[in-house]
Protein backbone atom coordinates (compact mmCIF):
# COMPACT_ATOMS: atom_id res chain seq x y z
CA UNK A 1 0.00 0.00 0.00
CA UNK A 2 2.74 2.42 0.98
CA UNK A 3 4.60 1.78 -2.29
CA UNK A 4 1.56 2.77 -4.34
CA UNK A 5 1.04 6.00 -2.43
CA UNK A 6 -1.81 7.16 -0.27
CA UNK A 7 -5.30 8.31 -1.13
CA UNK A 8 -6.85 11.76 -1.00
CA UNK A 9 -10.16 11.75 0.89
CA UNK A 10 -12.84 14.36 0.28
CA UNK A 11 -15.57 15.49 2.64
CA UNK A 12 -17.73 18.20 1.19
CA UNK A 13 -20.75 19.40 -0.71
CA UNK A 14 -21.86 17.78 -3.94
CA UNK A 15 -19.92 20.04 -6.31
CA UNK A 16 -16.67 19.85 -4.37
CA UNK A 17 -16.77 16.06 -4.14
CA UNK A 18 -17.87 15.67 -7.78
CA UNK A 19 -15.03 17.93 -8.91
CA UNK A 20 -12.33 16.09 -7.03
CA UNK A 21 -13.69 12.69 -8.03
CA UNK A 22 -13.60 13.91 -11.63
CA UNK A 23 -9.97 14.72 -10.96
CA UNK A 24 -9.42 11.06 -10.12
CA UNK A 25 -9.16 10.82 -6.34
CA UNK A 26 -12.14 8.51 -5.77
CA UNK A 27 -11.82 4.94 -4.59
CA UNK A 28 -14.24 2.23 -3.62
CA UNK A 29 -12.22 -0.55 -2.02
CA UNK A 30 -13.09 -4.24 -2.04
CA UNK A 31 -15.49 -3.70 0.87
CA UNK A 32 -17.06 -0.86 -1.19
CA UNK A 33 -15.86 1.62 1.42
CA UNK A 34 -15.55 5.08 -0.19
CA UNK A 35 -12.88 7.67 0.49
CA UNK A 36 -15.40 10.50 0.17
CA UNK A 37 -18.62 11.76 1.70
CA UNK A 38 -21.12 14.06 0.05
CA UNK A 39 -22.61 16.26 2.76
CA UNK A 40 -26.15 17.39 2.06
CA UNK A 41 -28.56 19.48 4.09
CA UNK A 42 -30.05 16.42 5.72
CA UNK A 43 -26.70 14.77 6.57
CA UNK A 44 -26.43 14.32 10.32
CA UNK A 45 -23.52 15.80 12.24
CA UNK A 46 -22.81 12.39 13.77
CA UNK A 47 -22.44 10.90 10.30
CA UNK A 48 -19.97 13.61 9.27
CA UNK A 49 -17.94 13.16 12.44
CA UNK A 50 -17.93 9.40 12.05
CA UNK A 51 -16.77 9.65 8.45
CA UNK A 52 -14.02 12.09 9.36
CA UNK A 53 -12.81 9.93 12.25
CA UNK A 54 -12.90 6.96 9.90
CA UNK A 55 -10.64 8.79 7.44
CA UNK A 56 -8.25 9.73 10.27
CA UNK A 57 -7.96 6.09 11.32
CA UNK A 58 -7.31 4.73 7.82
CA UNK A 59 -3.61 4.32 7.11
CA UNK A 60 -4.12 4.46 3.33
CA UNK A 61 -5.26 8.10 3.41
CA UNK A 62 -2.62 10.84 3.11
CA UNK A 63 -4.68 14.02 2.74
CA UNK A 64 -8.23 14.85 3.79
CA UNK A 65 -9.90 17.70 1.91
CA UNK A 66 -12.80 19.15 3.86
CA UNK A 67 -15.04 22.13 3.20
CA UNK A 68 -14.36 24.76 5.81
CA UNK A 69 -18.01 25.12 6.83
CA UNK A 70 -18.10 21.37 7.53
CA UNK A 71 -14.79 21.62 9.39
CA UNK A 72 -16.45 24.25 11.59
CA UNK A 73 -19.09 21.68 12.61
CA UNK A 74 -16.46 19.21 13.80
CA UNK A 75 -13.80 21.71 14.86
CA UNK A 76 -13.06 19.86 18.11
CA UNK A 77 -12.06 16.73 16.19
CA UNK A 78 -9.83 18.67 13.78
CA UNK A 79 -8.16 20.60 16.60
CA UNK A 80 -7.46 17.36 18.45
CA UNK A 81 -5.74 15.86 15.39
CA UNK A 82 -2.04 16.64 15.66
CA UNK A 83 -0.42 13.98 13.49
CA UNK A 84 1.31 14.83 10.21
CA UNK A 85 -0.52 12.09 8.28
CA UNK A 86 -3.24 12.44 7.21
CA UNK A 87 -2.95 16.16 6.56
CA UNK A 88 -6.24 18.01 6.86
CA UNK A 89 -6.86 20.75 4.31
CA UNK A 90 -9.74 23.14 4.78
CA UNK A 91 -11.10 24.28 1.45
CA UNK A 92 -13.80 26.75 0.45
CA UNK A 93 -17.27 25.74 -0.67
CA UNK A 94 -19.65 27.40 -3.10
CA UNK A 95 -21.62 29.22 -0.41
CA UNK A 96 -18.82 29.75 2.08
CA UNK A 97 -15.56 31.40 0.99
CA UNK A 98 -12.31 30.38 2.65
CA UNK A 99 -11.59 32.26 5.88
CA UNK A 100 -7.95 31.97 7.03
CA UNK A 101 -8.82 33.06 10.56
CA UNK A 102 -10.85 29.85 11.02
CA UNK A 103 -8.19 27.48 9.68
CA UNK A 104 -6.83 25.19 12.42
CA UNK A 105 -3.23 25.28 11.16
CA UNK A 106 -3.11 29.07 10.85
CA UNK A 107 -4.78 29.52 14.23
CA UNK A 108 -2.09 27.34 15.82
CA UNK A 109 0.65 29.32 14.03
CA UNK A 110 -0.93 32.56 15.21
CA UNK A 111 -1.05 31.16 18.74
CA UNK A 112 2.77 31.00 18.81
CA UNK A 113 2.97 34.72 19.39
CA UNK A 114 0.41 35.33 22.10
CA UNK A 115 1.38 36.40 25.60
CA UNK A 116 -0.01 33.14 26.90
CA UNK A 117 2.51 31.10 24.95
CA UNK A 118 5.40 33.31 26.06
CA UNK A 119 4.75 32.91 29.78
Amino acid at each position, binding site marked *: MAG*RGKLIAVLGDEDTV*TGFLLGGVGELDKHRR*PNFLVVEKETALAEIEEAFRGFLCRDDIG*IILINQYIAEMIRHVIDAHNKSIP*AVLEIPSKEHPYDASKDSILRRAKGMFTAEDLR
Partner: protein
Amino acid sequence: MAPAKDMGPAEICEELDQIILQLFDALEMLQNKREAFNSLVEQGWFSLSKSRYAMGNKSVSTLQYGHQMTPLVRVRTCEKEKDQVEFDVIQKDAPKARSESEATVEDIGPSEQVLRQRKGPRKAESSDQPQEATSRPVEGSGHQDPLNWFGILVPQSLRQAQRTFQEGIHLAAEIASLQSEIEACRRRYHALLERKRNFVPRESSSCELLKPSLS
Protein backbone atom coordinates in the same frame (compact mmCIF):
# COMPACT_ATOMS: atom_id res chain seq x y z
CA MET B 1 21.41 23.14 12.38
CA ALA B 2 23.42 22.35 15.55
CA PRO B 3 22.09 19.66 17.84
CA ALA B 4 19.85 21.28 20.44
CA LYS B 5 21.71 19.73 23.40
CA ASP B 6 25.00 21.57 22.62
CA MET B 7 23.44 24.99 22.17
CA GLY B 8 24.07 27.95 24.41
CA PRO B 9 21.47 30.69 25.07
CA ALA B 10 22.78 32.90 22.23
CA GLU B 11 22.67 30.05 19.75
CA ILE B 12 19.19 29.14 20.85
CA CYS B 13 18.05 32.73 20.29
CA GLU B 14 19.63 32.70 16.83
CA GLU B 15 17.98 29.39 16.03
CA LEU B 16 14.63 30.77 17.21
CA ASP B 17 15.06 33.72 14.84
CA GLN B 18 15.86 31.34 11.99
CA ILE B 19 12.76 29.31 12.72
CA ILE B 20 10.62 32.45 12.75
CA LEU B 21 12.04 33.51 9.37
CA GLN B 22 11.43 30.04 7.95
CA LEU B 23 7.91 30.10 9.35
CA PHE B 24 7.07 33.43 7.74
CA ASP B 25 8.47 32.26 4.40
CA ALA B 26 6.30 29.15 4.63
CA LEU B 27 3.25 31.24 5.62
CA GLU B 28 3.76 33.57 2.68
CA MET B 29 4.05 30.66 0.27
CA LEU B 30 1.01 29.03 1.84
CA GLN B 31 -1.03 32.18 1.32
CA ASN B 32 -0.04 32.38 -2.35
CA LYS B 33 -0.78 28.70 -2.96
CA ARG B 34 -4.08 29.01 -1.12
CA GLU B 35 -5.16 31.90 -3.33
CA ALA B 36 -4.25 29.93 -6.46
CA PHE B 37 -6.00 26.81 -5.13
CA ASN B 38 -9.17 28.69 -4.17
CA SER B 39 -9.42 30.34 -7.59
CA LEU B 40 -8.86 26.98 -9.32
CA VAL B 41 -11.63 25.37 -7.29
CA GLU B 42 -13.95 28.29 -8.08
CA GLN B 43 -13.13 27.91 -11.76
CA GLY B 44 -13.88 24.19 -11.48
CA TRP B 45 -17.32 24.82 -9.97
CA PHE B 46 -18.05 27.30 -12.72
CA SER B 47 -17.16 24.70 -15.36
CA LEU B 48 -19.31 22.11 -13.57
CA SER B 49 -22.24 24.55 -13.59
CA LYS B 50 -21.73 25.18 -17.29
CA SER B 51 -21.79 21.41 -17.90
CA ARG B 52 -25.01 21.16 -15.93
CA TYR B 53 -26.51 23.90 -18.06
CA ALA B 54 -25.47 22.05 -21.21
CA MET B 55 -26.37 18.49 -20.12
CA GLY B 56 -29.33 19.09 -17.83
CA ASN B 57 -29.68 19.71 -14.13
CA LYS B 58 -29.53 16.11 -12.96
CA SER B 59 -26.80 15.02 -15.36
CA VAL B 60 -23.89 16.04 -13.16
CA SER B 61 -24.66 14.76 -9.69
CA THR B 62 -23.83 12.01 -7.23
CA LEU B 63 -26.22 9.68 -9.08
CA GLN B 64 -23.79 9.42 -11.98
CA TYR B 65 -20.80 8.28 -9.92
CA GLY B 66 -19.34 5.00 -11.13
CA HIS B 67 -20.04 1.73 -9.34
CA GLN B 68 -16.36 0.96 -9.42
CA MET B 69 -13.76 3.56 -8.62
CA THR B 70 -10.02 3.18 -8.82
CA PRO B 71 -7.95 6.23 -7.93
CA LEU B 72 -5.99 7.80 -10.78
CA VAL B 73 -4.20 10.09 -8.35
CA ARG B 74 -2.38 9.18 -5.17
CA VAL B 75 0.05 10.98 -2.92
CA ARG B 76 3.48 9.75 -1.94
CA THR B 77 4.55 10.80 1.54
CA CYS B 78 8.15 11.13 2.60
CA GLU B 79 9.42 12.40 5.92
CA LYS B 80 11.93 15.22 5.32
CA GLU B 81 12.73 15.93 8.95
CA LYS B 82 11.18 14.89 12.22
CA ASP B 83 7.40 15.33 11.94
CA GLN B 84 7.75 17.14 8.62
CA VAL B 85 6.16 15.32 5.74
CA GLU B 86 6.30 16.12 2.05
CA PHE B 87 3.43 15.10 -0.20
CA ASP B 88 4.01 14.32 -3.89
CA VAL B 89 1.22 13.56 -6.31
CA ILE B 90 1.53 10.33 -8.29
CA GLN B 91 -0.55 10.33 -11.45
CA LYS B 92 -1.61 6.84 -12.43
CA ASP B 93 -1.26 5.50 -15.99
CA ALA B 94 -3.31 7.11 -18.76
CA PRO B 95 -7.08 6.74 -18.40
CA LYS B 96 -9.21 4.71 -20.79
CA ALA B 97 -10.22 7.65 -23.01
CA ARG B 98 -6.66 8.18 -24.18
CA SER B 99 -5.98 4.50 -24.85
CA GLU B 100 -9.16 4.37 -26.92
CA SER B 101 -8.14 7.31 -29.04
CA GLU B 102 -4.71 5.75 -29.57
CA ALA B 103 -6.37 2.47 -30.54
CA THR B 104 -8.54 4.16 -33.17
CA VAL B 105 -5.46 5.74 -34.74
CA GLU B 106 -3.80 2.33 -34.90
CA ASP B 107 -6.93 0.73 -36.38
CA ILE B 108 -6.94 3.04 -39.39
CA GLY B 109 -3.47 1.96 -40.48
CA PRO B 110 -3.98 -1.81 -40.83
CA SER B 111 -7.41 -1.43 -42.48
CA GLU B 112 -5.90 0.77 -45.21
CA GLN B 113 -3.20 -1.81 -45.81
CA VAL B 114 -5.82 -4.50 -46.16
CA LEU B 115 -7.66 -2.45 -48.79
CA ARG B 116 -4.47 -2.11 -50.83
CA GLN B 117 -3.96 -5.88 -50.82
CA ARG B 118 -7.48 -6.69 -51.98
CA LYS B 119 -6.30 -9.37 -54.31
CA GLY B 120 -4.36 -11.03 -51.55
CA PRO B 121 -5.60 -14.04 -49.61
CA ARG B 122 -8.85 -13.47 -47.66
CA LYS B 123 -7.58 -15.45 -44.69
CA ALA B 124 -5.26 -12.67 -43.53
CA GLU B 125 -8.16 -10.21 -43.26
CA SER B 126 -10.36 -12.61 -41.34
CA SER B 127 -7.59 -13.50 -38.92
CA ASP B 128 -6.98 -9.80 -38.14
CA GLN B 129 -10.48 -9.03 -36.98
CA PRO B 130 -10.71 -11.46 -34.04
CA GLN B 131 -7.34 -10.20 -32.85
CA GLU B 132 -8.72 -6.66 -32.60
CA ALA B 133 -11.80 -7.89 -30.85
CA THR B 134 -9.77 -9.70 -28.22
CA SER B 135 -7.47 -6.73 -27.65
CA ARG B 136 -10.30 -4.31 -26.80
CA PRO B 137 -11.50 -5.87 -23.52
CA VAL B 138 -7.92 -5.85 -22.23
CA GLU B 139 -7.73 -2.10 -22.77
CA GLY B 140 -11.12 -1.63 -21.10
CA SER B 141 -10.05 -3.44 -17.96
CA GLY B 142 -7.70 -0.56 -17.03
CA HIS B 143 -8.58 2.54 -15.03
CA GLN B 144 -11.80 4.18 -16.08
CA ASP B 145 -11.75 7.89 -16.74
CA PRO B 146 -14.29 9.50 -14.36
CA LEU B 147 -15.49 11.61 -17.30
CA ASN B 148 -17.18 8.50 -18.68
CA TRP B 149 -19.55 8.39 -15.69
CA PHE B 150 -21.30 11.39 -17.16
CA GLY B 151 -21.57 10.08 -20.72
CA ILE B 152 -19.40 9.41 -23.71
CA LEU B 153 -19.76 12.72 -25.49
CA VAL B 154 -19.37 15.08 -22.56
CA PRO B 155 -19.22 18.84 -23.11
CA GLN B 156 -15.92 20.67 -23.23
CA SER B 157 -16.76 22.43 -19.96
CA LEU B 158 -16.74 19.11 -18.09
CA ARG B 159 -13.30 18.30 -19.50
CA GLN B 160 -12.21 21.76 -18.43
CA ALA B 161 -13.58 21.11 -14.93
CA GLN B 162 -11.60 17.86 -14.77
CA ARG B 163 -8.36 19.59 -15.80
CA THR B 164 -8.95 22.37 -13.27
CA PHE B 165 -9.56 19.96 -10.40
CA GLN B 166 -6.51 17.90 -11.41
CA GLU B 167 -4.39 21.05 -11.14
CA GLY B 168 -6.12 21.71 -7.82
CA ILE B 169 -5.07 18.28 -6.53
CA HIS B 170 -1.41 19.07 -7.28
CA LEU B 171 -1.72 22.36 -5.43
CA ALA B 172 -3.48 20.63 -2.53
CA ALA B 173 -0.45 18.35 -2.11
CA GLU B 174 1.87 21.37 -2.06
CA ILE B 175 -0.36 23.09 0.50
CA ALA B 176 -0.34 19.96 2.66
CA SER B 177 3.49 19.93 2.54
CA LEU B 178 3.61 23.60 3.57
CA GLN B 179 1.16 23.00 6.40
CA SER B 180 3.36 20.18 7.63
CA GLU B 181 6.40 22.48 7.48
CA ILE B 182 4.55 25.14 9.50
CA GLU B 183 3.55 22.58 12.11
CA ALA B 184 7.13 21.30 12.33
CA CYS B 185 8.39 24.90 12.74
CA ARG B 186 5.86 25.48 15.50
CA ARG B 187 6.94 22.36 17.38
CA ARG B 188 10.64 23.21 17.05
CA TYR B 189 9.98 26.77 18.16
CA HIS B 190 8.16 25.66 21.30
CA ALA B 191 10.86 23.12 22.16
CA LEU B 192 13.61 25.72 21.79
CA LEU B 193 11.64 28.34 23.70
CA GLU B 194 11.35 25.88 26.55
CA ARG B 195 15.13 25.36 26.51
CA LYS B 196 15.72 29.09 26.43
CA ARG B 197 13.57 29.53 29.51
CA ASN B 198 15.64 26.94 31.35
CA PHE B 199 18.86 28.81 30.47
CA VAL B 200 17.86 32.38 31.17
CA PRO B 201 17.10 33.26 34.79
CA ARG B 202 13.39 33.38 35.45
CA GLU B 203 13.00 37.08 36.30
CA SER B 204 15.13 38.46 33.45
CA SER B 205 13.50 36.12 30.92
CA SER B 206 10.03 37.15 31.95
CA CYS B 207 10.97 40.83 31.55
CA GLU B 208 12.57 40.24 28.16
CA LEU B 209 9.85 38.03 26.87
CA LEU B 210 6.95 40.11 28.03
CA LYS B 211 8.30 43.34 26.57
CA PRO B 212 7.30 42.67 22.96
CA SER B 213 3.91 41.31 23.90
CA LEU B 214 3.11 44.35 26.08
CA SER B 215 4.19 46.91 23.49
